[in-house]
Structure formats: C-alpha cells, structure tokens
C-alpha cells in the first residue's frame, strides 16, 4: 500500500509553524524573565537605640546598589533591595529573613544584624540554603567555628579576633610604656561583647604578661543606666579600662562616665569609639581615648576612601559608619562575584566569592579578600589611635599588620579547637 500525500499543510510544516509560534510568543517572556529584577533581602535594625547603625547599613548598601544597577545590574538583572526592620531582636530577625525568602521571593540575603541577630539569620540561611552575606556581626565564632560553617554564608564584616590582635598588641605597648598593670573591662553582655573582650584580654596579656584584670562589668545590651557600672569601676581603681560598648550604649556610657571624671582617672581603650556614630553624637568627647578605626574617612589615608566617605556624606548628609562600609563591601563583592560567575545563582556566586580579591577603598593595601577557608573578609584596614574632640577625630592611626594577624589568628584557631 502506498501513501499518497494529501493536499494542504504537511505535518512537518505544522510543527515548524507551531515551533515558530511558540518561540515568537515565548520571546517576550524569556526577555522579561531575563530583565526581571533580582530581589535581595536585608533584615537590619531600623528601630531602637542602634537604629542609626541599621540605617547606615541600608545607606551603605543603597549607595553601591545604585552603582551596580547603573552598570547593568547583577548578570544583567537590576538589583531590588527589600529591607525590613528586625528591631534588633533575634527571633524577629529570623522571622523577617524567612519571610523575605519565602514570601517576598528574595534570592539572596544580606544579613545586616548585630551578632545578637546574626546567629539567628545564619540558621535560617542554613535551613533555606540561600546565599547569605553577614555584614555587621564581628563575633569571631560566626565564621571561625567549623560547627557554624555552611557553604552559603559569608562575612564581609570585621572580625573580633582581628581587632583584638591589633588592639591587644597596641594596648600592650602602651601598658608597658606607662606601667598599666591593673585593668578593668566593661562590655555588653552578649556574644560579641563576651568574645571580643576575651580575645582582647588574651592578646593584651600575651604581649604584656604583667597585666591583671581586676574588675569585669557586663551591662546588658541597650541598658539605659550605667551608673552602677561606672561606680563599680571607680571602686576597683584600675589604671586602664577596656570596653567594646558601641552605638547609643557607648554614648550613654561616655556621658555618664564623664560626670564621674572617669576618663581622667584611667587610660581608656574603647574599640568602637572611632566611628562617626559615636564621635559626632557625644557632645563632650573626652580627649585621648584609644580606639580602633571603625569608619573614618581619613583612615586608610587614601583618596579612594576619602572620596567614598564624601560621596556618602553628599548623598545622606552624614558620615558613614563602620556598618556602612561593611555593607557596601557586601555589594561590591556580590557584583564582582556575579560578574565572575556570569550568573545570579546563589551557588555559582558562592563559588566565585571563595578567595575573591577586589579593589576596595577600605583595604589596608587597596584590596580586600574573601578568604576561602572560612568565608570571611580579610585585608581590610585595621589600626588604633587616640581621639581628639574635633575632625579628623583620630589624627594618627597605627596600622595593624596582617601578617601578624594571620599568624596569631591561626594559633588562636588551634587553641579554640577550630582547626
């Protein structure tokens, strides 16, 4: 039996037409999908005593997102930030993060929480598998402890142990020169305060073994009144005081300690002092407080850093904070990683982020690196100096040496059982 071709449109032609039609109709969808914005979720603290830092985190991010979008976005997709207030509460930070991913359709997370909330967001990232960049938490354990490690979480913030190595060696030199043997500590009672103080004391004693801690105070986070803490320190009569209080807590503490003339009775080392948040808010800033650099536009003393600080000031009418540069760095790294991976897929970006080195206004040598082994930022500018009550606030900063930081950090990890 032979088949005879029927007149009309052949099956092949019909299929071809259907295919062409499908392509024609689908093209706008594909184009639209490609042009679709990529939503990046960001829980941060927008109310309460540290709201200024949360706002400055948002500002830091938005400053860079605008540049990224102007340059074509992440792998061709415009970035849309979805920013929510966690009120500084861990349970709220976790809830908001989950909602940002599950309900709002965010494909990436920037966790702009303090350490109190960062660990909660970290667990959400662990559970959902979404790429998460911790931008503010400086508690070393967040990335140094292998038990915390997940392949999809990175940190673009300072790390407490780095600050403590530099700060401890800086303080030890002064302690030895001035004979400061009796020390007191006063730090907030949560992960960051406890960890950072412990690490600082470790390195202070390592470089100045005669030092003795004669008084410890652990006010709770956001405590309104420090009177009993101030008087307790006065009773102990230390020669020097270390504190990692920050933000509104630090300014409250300074205001209350000032009227007891505490700062004239001992040498004070406050790691978080040299940040515009505290420097500009405190009305009667004591002279000669030792502080680590947080964000000041004069350190690192480069035109790139000064330009970034001025651009921020021009846009938001105030100077950036430590949290601003840490959040800006997250976007800078995301942009570079996305370019390298040519994708916005979280796994591909994570792959590209490991070991990624980028040019940065905040780098000690003009670059910062996302260290592959523990997925944390290294190479940022880190140093200590003393305050004066007006700009540039910390006129001379002694730079920390990253070679020493790496050596001592490796030792520290061994002692903690992290390696």
């Amino acid at each position: 039996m032979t088949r005879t071709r029927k007149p009309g449109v052949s099956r092949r032609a019909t299929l071809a037409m259907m295919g062409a039609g499908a392509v024609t109709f689908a093209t706008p969808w594909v184009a639209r999908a490609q042009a679709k914005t990529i939503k990046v979720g960001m829980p941060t603290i927008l109310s309460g005593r540290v709201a200024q830092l949360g706002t400055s985190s948002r500002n830091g991010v938005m400053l860079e997102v605008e540049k990224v979008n102007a340059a074509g976005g992440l792998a061709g997709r415009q970035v849309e930030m979805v920013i929510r207030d966690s009120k500084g509460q861990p349970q709220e930070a976790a809830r908001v993060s989950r909602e940002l991913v599950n309900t709002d359709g965010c494909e990436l997370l920037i966790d702009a929480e303090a350490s109190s909330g960062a660990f909660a967001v970290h667990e959400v990232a662990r559970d959902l598998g979404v790429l998460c960049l911790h931008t503010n938490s400086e508690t070393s354990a967040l990335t140094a402890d292998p038990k915390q490690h997940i392949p999809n979480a990175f940190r673009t913030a300072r790390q407490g142990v780095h600050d403590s190595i530099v700060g401890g060696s800086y303080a030890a030199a002064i302690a030895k020169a001035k004979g400061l043997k009796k020390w007191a500590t006063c730090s907030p009672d949560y992960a960051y305060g406890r960890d950072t103080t412990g690490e600082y004391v470790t390195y202070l004693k390592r470089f100045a073994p005669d030092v003795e801690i004669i008084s410890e105070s652990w006010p709770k986070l956001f405590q309104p009144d420090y009177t009993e803490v101030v008087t307790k320190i006065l009773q102990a009569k230390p020669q020097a005081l270390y504190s990692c209080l920050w933000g509104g807590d630090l300014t409250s503490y300074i205001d209350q300690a000032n009227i007891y003339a505490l700062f004239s009775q001992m040498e004070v080392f406050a790691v978080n002092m040299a940040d515009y948040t505290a420097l500009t808010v405190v009305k009667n800033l004591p002279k000669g407080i030792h502080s680590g650099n947080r964000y000041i536009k004069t350190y690192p003393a480069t035109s790139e850093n000064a330009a970034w600080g001025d651009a921020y000031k021009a846009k938001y009418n105030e100077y950036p904070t430590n949290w601003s540069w840490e959040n800006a760095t997250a976007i800078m790294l995301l942009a570079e990683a996305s370019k390298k991976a040519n994708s916005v897929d979280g796994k591909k970006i994570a792959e590209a982020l490991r070991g990624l080195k980028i040019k940065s206004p905040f780098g000690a040598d003009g670059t910062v690196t996302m260290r592959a082994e523990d997925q944390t930022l290294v190479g940022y500018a880190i140093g200590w100096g003393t305050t004066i009550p007006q700009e540039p606030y910390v006129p001379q900063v002694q730079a920390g040496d990253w070679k020493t930081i790496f050596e001592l950090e490796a030792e520290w990890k061994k002692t903690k059982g992290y390696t």
Partner: protein
Amino acid sequence: MDLDALTGCLASSACLVTQTTSGFIIGMLLFLVAVGLTLIFGVLKVVNFSHGAFYMFGAYFAMTAYQYTGSFALAMLCGAAGTALLGLIFERVFMSRVYGSDVLMQLLVCYAFVLIFDDVVRMIWGQEFKSMGMPAAFQVAPLFIAGGVVPPYYLLLIGVALVAAVILGLGLARTRIGKVIRAAAHNPGMVSALGINTGLIYGGVFALGGMLAGLAGALAAPVRSLTPGMGFSVLIESFIVTVIGGMGSILGALIGAILIGMIRSFGSLGFPLFTEGLMYLFMVIVLVSRPTGLFGKEVA
C-alpha cells in the same frame, strides 16, 4: 558572685558613699516615673502602660528646648510642662473613654499608644539616637565626700526628686486639692455628688503623673542617649518599684525606688552577673510575704 568586693565596699567609707549615692541616683529617677504610675493607679484605677512614653517625651522636649535656648532650667521646665500638657490631652481624649473597662482593654489601648508615641517620636526627631549633652555648669570635677565620688549633677537630680516627693506628699496630705484627690480615689461617686468635677481631677492627676515622668526624662536627658522606645525599660523597672512599694502608695514608690537603686548599686559589686535577677528576686520575696506590696492596702 563576688562577696569579697561587697564586704570590702561595706567596710570602706569611700565606697559606701559612692555606691549609696549611685543607689539614690538610680532610685530617684525611678521614683519620679513610678510615683506618677502609682498616683494614676491610686486615683484613676488605671494601669497606665503607656507611662514610659511620657518619660521619653520629657527627655526629647528637654533636649529640643536646650538646643534652641541653651538654658538648662528652661529645658527642664519644657520637659515637665510639655508632658503635663500631653498627659492632660491624652487623658481627656483617649484614656477617659476606657475608665471602668476591662483591665485587658486598658492595657491594649495603652500598649497601642506606646507604639504610636514611639512612631511619633521617630517622625519628629528621627530614629537615630540623640544626645543632649551635659550643660557647661555641670561639666565640673566630681565632689569627693569621705573619699567617695559624687557628681554635682547627680546631687541636683536627687535633690529635685526629693523636693518633688515632699511637695507631692504634703500636697496630698495637707491641701484641699490633695484631700479632694484622695476622696476621689476612695469614693468618686460621692465626690461627684458633692458637685466636684471628677473629670477635672482625673485629668489633673494624669497630667501630674505625666509631668513627673517627663521631669525624670528631662533630668536623664543629659546623661542618657535618647531614642524612640527609651521609655520601655524604665517603665518595667517602675512597675517593679510600684509593685514592691504597693500600687497606689506614694511612700511605697519612694521606698521601693530607693531599695531598687541600692540593690542595683551594691548588687553590681557583690553579684555582678545577677544584678537584674536580684531585683526580680526581691520583688518575688516582697510579693510572697506581702502580696499588696510594702505599703499597699488590702482591697476589700
């Protein structure tokens, strides 16, 4: 626990002076907030959960007035008078509508206003923390009394609070208005039947309570950072003071506040990790042994 530090302090006159003053500072500030709370409860029978907001407004009003005038006295006056006016408006427009309602309803209304007031502050002054700064007159070296350190500003703070306590106590006990207020607290129906405007009394008491909290906020403004929501933690401690002293008792508020101040001050030496817990433990002990508080009266 560091009992050596505590016993060492108790044996040292310098330490005793410093820590006792510190206890009074904490206590007197708490007293000013708690006494308003207890007064409002005593007369209006309302647990004013929004009371901390008046402390917050007092601080912000004082800071703003200080920024514009540079006068500390005017700043204190604005803090107190501004919150008195706010209290009066709040009572007449909103709170007067929930008198006699279920306690839960009163709490819900008050809590709603805690959030609303925080947002109002956020809208007016911004959400970042502020600092008023210490007036130049008080930027002086602390006094050394028997070796103990006492800042002059805190002496002023303690003095103002004590004067407020005396005026309030005498005013309620000796003046005609005070007697009417006490009568209204005891039997508002009878007071009303005698032709006295109880609405005016209620509004006045609420304004007075708000004013005292506002004064506390104004006095705290030079030494505490100002932020929306700052009234909440003060409110919790004030509730503890009020409960310990006995709801409705002014003397109870004074004694309760001083006790809490001393617990915090000396507790920070002997029990540095349990100072907060010590405060709550004390409250539990008082309530177990005397459920109406130290100076509270049994409700028939």
